[in-house]
């Protein structure tokens, strides 16, 4: 069964905070839920499906269901890191199509800044029972940034990709972030600024990295008859797919991501092709993440991503493929180190015509959002959705 057209995104909300010292984690989840339901014109009593990931306090969905006073008949706490919430949109549509719920609420919240959490440059052990891979990795010092950096090293070696090409991705995000009053970094940067910023883990510089922020967001996915009854513009889900890419028993290939699988499947389900897409939200933990996903989703041939992203081609109103017009994780927001949910939010704003006028894509009727969670260089979850304005 296809989920094409079986669900609509009716409500979205992004928490304006980027530093949540005075908010609890549960409170942020509840505030974004309230915001997205009000955006849709629904109440919490309409919610009969609840989706969250590992950022939610407590075991799976239970604590948040109680805290918010929900009574869902369908719950899903699938955690694929930052890609979870893109995956949840697809799962919500499946549940709606199967008659298991009609109003699905997805929430994300995090406060790594307030909690003084270890950043992307410190190796992190999960604690507790180690994962089977941990003894063979953790002692070597894998961090968020150096494992993504290795993908960049190999991409440069195989395809001749340059630091300047990667820098263009940050430059484009910064051009967009200047118009977002909530963005953490609002200064426009140049290619030179990026390549001259301090080296963190070769070949990634400080400005190749995303921001670390507190905050969160929520999405309300509804059945067609509910969408019809609401006053908001109708954003229809055309396709969704998920995948987990691994080290494959040692047959490691860092030149591509799971987007190769999810992109193909999502475009097939949606019945559209990359050249039809007017706007893309692409997971941007690092510049290399964006470049690889754009290739893997079919926006450029493998190895030609550097050319695609250079010279402002990702800047709204300037280039052919406007991306992350809210400033993305590179400049605006990466709540709880999980950037997938905000990718869906900006895609919905673009389709509704509610993006900032300076970055609103004209006649934006078809958009793609993609998430990558975990570590691109170790193992990661991928999820893609294609959305249409009806």
């Amino acid at each position: 069964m296809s989920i094409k057209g079986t669900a609509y995104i009716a409500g979205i909300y992004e928490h304006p905070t980027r530093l949540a010292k005075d908010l609890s984690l549960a409170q942020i989840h509840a505030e974004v839920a309230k915001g997205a339901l009000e955006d849709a014109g629904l109440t919490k009593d309409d919610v009969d499906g609840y989706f969250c990931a590992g950022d939610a306090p407590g075991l799976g969905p239970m604590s948040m269901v109680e805290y918010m006073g929900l009574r869902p008949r369908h719950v899903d706490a699938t955690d694929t890191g930052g890609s979870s919430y893109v995956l949840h949109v697809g799962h919500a549509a499946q549940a709606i199509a199967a008659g298991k719920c009609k109003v699905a609420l997805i929430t994300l919240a995090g406060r790594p800044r307030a909690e003084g959490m270890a950043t992307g440059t410190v190796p992190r052990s999960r604690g507790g029972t180690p994962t089977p891979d941990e003894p063979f990795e953790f002692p070597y010092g894998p961090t968020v940034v150096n494992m993504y950096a290795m993908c960049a090293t190999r991409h440069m070696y195989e395809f001749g990709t340059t630091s300047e090409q990667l820098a263009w991705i940050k430059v484009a995000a910064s051009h967009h972030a200047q118009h977002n009053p909530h963005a953490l970094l609002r200064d426009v940067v140049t290619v030179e600024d990026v390549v001259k910023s301090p080296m963190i883990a070769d070949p990634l510089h400080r400005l190749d990295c995303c921001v670390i922020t507190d905050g969160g967001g929520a999405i309300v996915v509804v059945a067609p008859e509910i969408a019809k009854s609401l006053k908001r513009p109708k954003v229809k889900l055309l396709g969704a797919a998920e995948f987990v890419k691994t080290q494959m028993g040692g047959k490691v290939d860092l030149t591509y991501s799971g987007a190769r699988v999810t992109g193909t499947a999502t475009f097939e389900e949606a019945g559209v092709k990359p050249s039809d897409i007017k706007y893309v939200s692409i997971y941007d933990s690092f510049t290399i993440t964006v470049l690889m996903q754009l290739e893997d989703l079919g926006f450029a041939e493998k190895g030609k991503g550097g050319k695609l992203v250079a010279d402002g081609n990702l800047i709204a109103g300037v280039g052919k493929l406007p991306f992350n017009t809210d400033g993305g994780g590179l400049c605006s927001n990466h709540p709880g180190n999980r950037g997938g949910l905000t990718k869906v939010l900006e895609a919905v704003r673009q389709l509704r015509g509610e993006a900032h006028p300076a970055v609103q894509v004209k006649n934006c009727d078809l958009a793609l959002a993609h998430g990558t969670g975990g570590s691109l260089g170790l193992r990661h979850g991928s999820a893609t959705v294609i959305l249409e304005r009806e």
Partner: protein
Amino acid sequence: MAAQETKQRKLPAPTVSAEAQAYWDAANQGKLLVKKCLACGEFHHYPRPLCPFCFSDKTEWIEASGKGTIYAFSVMRRAPVPYAMAYVTLAEGPRMVTNIVDCDFDKLKCEQPVKVVFKPTEGGPLLPMFTPA
């Protein structure tokens, strides 16, 4: 030897599980083991009792040659003691997460030949790493 290797980097001990006991025992004797499947003939890493390719439970330990090439690397500059994270392609086939040590990090290249060396961890078994061959 480059100056960046003179400061001592402390390596956390790996958690040794029963299924990988032989791997760490061998490492302590300066031997690198890889798992080979008796059913499909494939080598894999990290080692598992069940082959991740065909799910056969007939797997055996093979002593690797210790030779390989750098598949990818990244020098972690933002660390108390900079270090080179890497994937090395073993001569036997599998690619493993490791570090490149005892060398000038600025001269590292993809596909460069390397050989295994073993480094002490804090209270745990020796850890296989690689150095330019």
